[in-house]
């Protein structure tokens, strides 16, 4: 690679080893004669193609693979949990099985980052089953019929639906104070349940009658028409496990009539790439504290949203990352406002989205891509699509998917312009992973875990609570520390809130 020098606009964005830091970039040294690599109309962002390559979904995909295969998932930081969904006040639990959400929070040691660890959450799939969705007569909501246009499928669910008897919560939640809430928007739906109460099929399940695989289709839920019982799902980014046991995207066929939906695996991460935020770092893992008050350059202030966590009894702001397992906090959301210069360096990059099937660009993201009520996010609409734009999987989520053996489809936006060969580009990633591993392994042992507590004690920290809300998809007030049961190495569950500890 040619010699470079740092951009004289300053190192906004962190200069960590991760490529996912928005903003920082290098400019070619103009001391030598070189082809022009800048573009017009790109403002102060020279060589924006290089930057775009680095920010591409492909880079995340590839880097996830590097992390999974070289650095490895550090199982010392794997925290499987069971979340007992709290019942509303005044509701008594029923007999038998209680509602649960199973998941895992995985820590990724991270070089040069505040708190030293990024936490990635995975909620296992199939926890929500549409054979548990009934209309007022008790009829089950199977897939009755499907119509489609270029971009969407419109799925009619079985049952009698009307304004008086719309689809039940959480699909469609009537709201006395305004528009109905649709918390499941953005979830991945899969037609994997063949019969009520049946085990969901996997991509390998054979139909004994035909000796062929059943296969299934998954797509993102875009909208819910409650009074008519219609779900709108994104066809363009759909995904099919075909009878040949391969994944196809977009799917070649719609959902199968007569089956029941279930939800897919859901991920969320605290990293600045997933959250589209760049935290202000006051120290790094080397212990070289920058010792400065975090600030955002006024020119970089953007519209965005941020959370403020407060003590429920005193109302005092409590942003500490180390806490005990009994301290629940209130979260209030400030949204559609200028970002918080004291906490976030940057809310992240804006990027162009993929083209839809209608060849109409989806346009840049807005920060109004969610709805909120009483300062809490009630739905997201930043949808996942496996090509270029998604509820954007970061490298940590890709690493988990590689580790799970679900090789995500290789994004189509392979870097098309680099100053070195693509082989060298990949080798750089490998070298970077190797270097990061060596560095973090030692540095983190010294102080990384001293900066932030581990799950579930950090779940109510400002870094994790928004992530847990996204992951569990319950109102933030329903995320209670006493409802987490963590699984220890023997497989037993313990309750940190009651002072229980894992087996030694």
């Amino acid at each position, binding site marked *: 690679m040619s010699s470079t020098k740092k951009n004289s606009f300053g190192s906004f964005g962190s200069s960590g080893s991760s490529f996912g830091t928005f903003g920082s970039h290098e400019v070619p040294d103009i001391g030598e004669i070189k082809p022009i690599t800048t573009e017009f109309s790109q403002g102060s962002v020279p060589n924006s193609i290089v930057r775009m390559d680095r920010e591409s979904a492909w880079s995340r995909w590839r880097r996830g693979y590097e992390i999974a295969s070289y650095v490895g998932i550090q199982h010392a930081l794997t925290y*499987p949990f069971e979340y007992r969904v709290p019942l509303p006040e005044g509701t008594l639990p029923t007999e038998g099985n209680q509602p649960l959400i199973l998941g895992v929070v995985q820590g990724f040691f991270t070089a040069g980052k505040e708190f030293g660890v990024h936490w990635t959450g995975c909620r296992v799939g199939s926890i929500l089953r549409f054979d548990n969705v009934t209309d007022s007569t008790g009829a089950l909501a199977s897939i009755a019929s499907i119509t489609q246009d270029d971009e969407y499928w419109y799925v009619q669910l079985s049952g009698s639906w009307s304004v008086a008897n719309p689809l039940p919560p959480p699909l469609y939640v009537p709201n006395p104070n305004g528009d109905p809430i649709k918390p499941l928007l953005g979830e991945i739906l899969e037609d994997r349940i063949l019969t009520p109460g049946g085990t969901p099929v996997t991509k390998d399940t054979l139909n004994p009658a035909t000796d062929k695989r059943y296969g299934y289709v998954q797509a993102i839920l875009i909208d819910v028409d409650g009074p008519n019982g219609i779900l709108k799902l994104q066809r363009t980014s759909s995904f099919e496990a075909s009878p040949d046991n391969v994944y196809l995207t977009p799917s070649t066929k719609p959902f199968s009539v007569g089956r029941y939906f279930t939800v897919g695996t859901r991920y969320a991460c605290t990293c600045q790439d997933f959250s589209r935020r760049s935290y202000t770092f006051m120290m790094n893992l080397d212990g070289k504290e920058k010792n400065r008050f975090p600030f955002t350059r006024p020119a970089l202030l953007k519209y965005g949203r941020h959370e403020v966590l407060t003590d429920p009894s005193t109302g005092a702001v409590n942003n500490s990352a180390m806490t005990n397992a009994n301290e629940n906090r209130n979260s209030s959301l400030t949204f559609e406002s200028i970002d918080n210069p004291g906490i976030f360096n940057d809310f992240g990059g804006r990027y162009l989205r993929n083209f839809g099937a209608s060849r109409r660009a989806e346009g840049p993201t807005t920060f109004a891509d969610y709805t909120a009520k009483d300062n809490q996010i009630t739905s997201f609409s930043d949808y996942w699509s496996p090509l270029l734009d998604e509820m954007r999987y970061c490298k940590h989520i890709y690493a988990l998917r590689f580790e799970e053996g679900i090789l995500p489809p290789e994004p189509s936006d392979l870097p098309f312009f680099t100053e070195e060969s693509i082989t060298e580009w990949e080798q750089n990633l490998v070298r970077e992973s190797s270097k990061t591993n060596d560095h973090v392994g030692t540095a983190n042992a010294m102080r990384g875990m001293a900066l932030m507590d581990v799950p579930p004690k950090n779940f109510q920290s400002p870094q994790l609570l928004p992530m847990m809300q996204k992951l569990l998809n319950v109102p933030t007030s329903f995320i209670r520390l006493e409802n987490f049961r963590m699984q220890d190495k023997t497989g037993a569950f313990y309750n940190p809130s009651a002072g229980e500890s894992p087996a030694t």
Partner: protein
Amino acid sequence: MTDFGEVIETRYILSEAQLAASQFGFSEVYYSGSPTVYSPGDVVHLPYASGETSTMQALGDAWAAYASGIGPG
């Protein structure tokens, strides 16, 4: 002597020592603890019996309570 095109026996006959060394898949595996509950496609409490609160219903109850200003119990 075989002619071209004839089907011949191609299976390699393993010796006793080779057979013993290839018994990997049949040997007893020792492990302790339980594997992490962490696999996509896992199913929680399947199926919910009639009368039980499913996760779907619990999530719906939580959001409905939230919309009405009711907190967790």
